[in-house]
C-alpha cells in the first residue's frame, strides 16, 4: 500500500487504471473560512472576516475591504451552483444576490490580489466563476481533475458536502511522462 501511495504522490496514477471511486466529502465551514482567509491574506485589500454555510447551497460571507484609506465592511449571501461542470468544464459557479450584482465587478478587479492565478476568477453580473483547470496548483491536481467524471456540491447547516465520481480510464490514466 505504501508503494501505491508513493506512486500516486509522484503523479503516477497507472496503478489505479480502471478504478472507479465514489466520494462524499463533508467540508466544515471553519475550514472554508480558513481557506478563504488564507486566499485573502496575501497583502490584498479584501479580507474575509466571517463565513457561514446554510442549507440550500447558501453561503453567507463577511468581507472587509481597505484601499486608498477607504475601509468598508460587506456582507453577502452567495448561492453555490450544485453542478461543478465535470468532466467538460470543471468550475465552481457562485451567484450574488440581485441587489449586489455590482460586487462581481469589484471581485473581478480584486481577483489578482486574492492570490488567484490568471484566468481563475471570472465575474459577469451576478455570476462569479472559479475555473478549476486554471487554478490547479500542480500536475497531480490536473491529473485528478481529468479523472473526475461527475461532481456536485450540496450543503447542510455548517458544512458543504462534495459528492463526486472518479474514473481512471485505462487508456487515459496519467503517468509522470504526461507531465514532461
Amino acid at each position, binding site marked *: *500500500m*505504501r*508503494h*501505491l*501511495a*508513493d506512486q*500516486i*504522490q509522484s503523479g503516477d496514477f497507472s*496503478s*489505479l*487504471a*480502471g*478504478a*472507479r*471511486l*465514489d*466520494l*462524499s*466529502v*463533508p*467540508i*466544515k465551514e471553519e*475550514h472554508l473560512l480558513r481557506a478563504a482567509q488564507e486566499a485573502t491574506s496575501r497583502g490584498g485589500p479584501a479580507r474575509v472576516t466571517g463565513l457561514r454555510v446554510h442549507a440550500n447551497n447558501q453561503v453567507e460571507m463577511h468581507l472587509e475591504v481597505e484601499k486608498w484609506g477607504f475601509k468598508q465592511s460587506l456582507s453577502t449571501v452567495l448561492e453555490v451552483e450544485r453542478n461543478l461542470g465535470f468532466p467538460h468544464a470543471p468550475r465552481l459557479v457562485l451567484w450574488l444576490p440581485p441587489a449586489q450584482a455590482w460586487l462581481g465587478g469589484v471581485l473581478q478587479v480584486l481577483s489578482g490580489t486574492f492570490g488567484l492565478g490568471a484566468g481563475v476568477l471570472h465575474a459577469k453580473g451576478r455570476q462569479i466563476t472559479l475555473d478549476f483547470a486554471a487554478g490547479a496548483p500542480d500536475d497531480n491536481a490536473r491529473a485528478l481533475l481529468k479523472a473526475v467524471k461527475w461532481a456536485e456540491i450540496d450543503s447542510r447547516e455548517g*458544512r458543504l*458536502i462534495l459528492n463526486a465520481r*472518479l474514473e481512471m480510464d485505462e487508456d487515459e490514466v496519467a503517468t509522470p511522462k504526461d507531465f514532461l
Partner: protein
Amino acid sequence: MSNPLQKHLQNGFADFDGLRISGTIPLREDLVNQLIADVLQSGLPTPSATPEAKIDPNPLLQRVKSARVRFEAGRAVLDFEVGV
C-alpha cells in the same frame, strides 16, 4: 514540500467527519506482489530517502469499513468502502 493531503491522511481524516469513499480498483499483478512483499516484511522499517515527504496510508486503512477481492475477466478486483 509537504503534500496537503498528508496531514489529513496522518490524522485519519478526523477533520472530515462523515467522509465516505467507496469504489472498485482492478489489482495489477505487480501491485499484488508488492502488497505480498509488504506483508512479508511487516515490522521492518521501509527505507526512504525523505520519509517526511511520503504518504503513510495506515491511518486511512484503519478507516476501512469493508474490503473484498473478487475475480472478474481474469483479473483481481478490490471493492472497498472507507468511512470517517
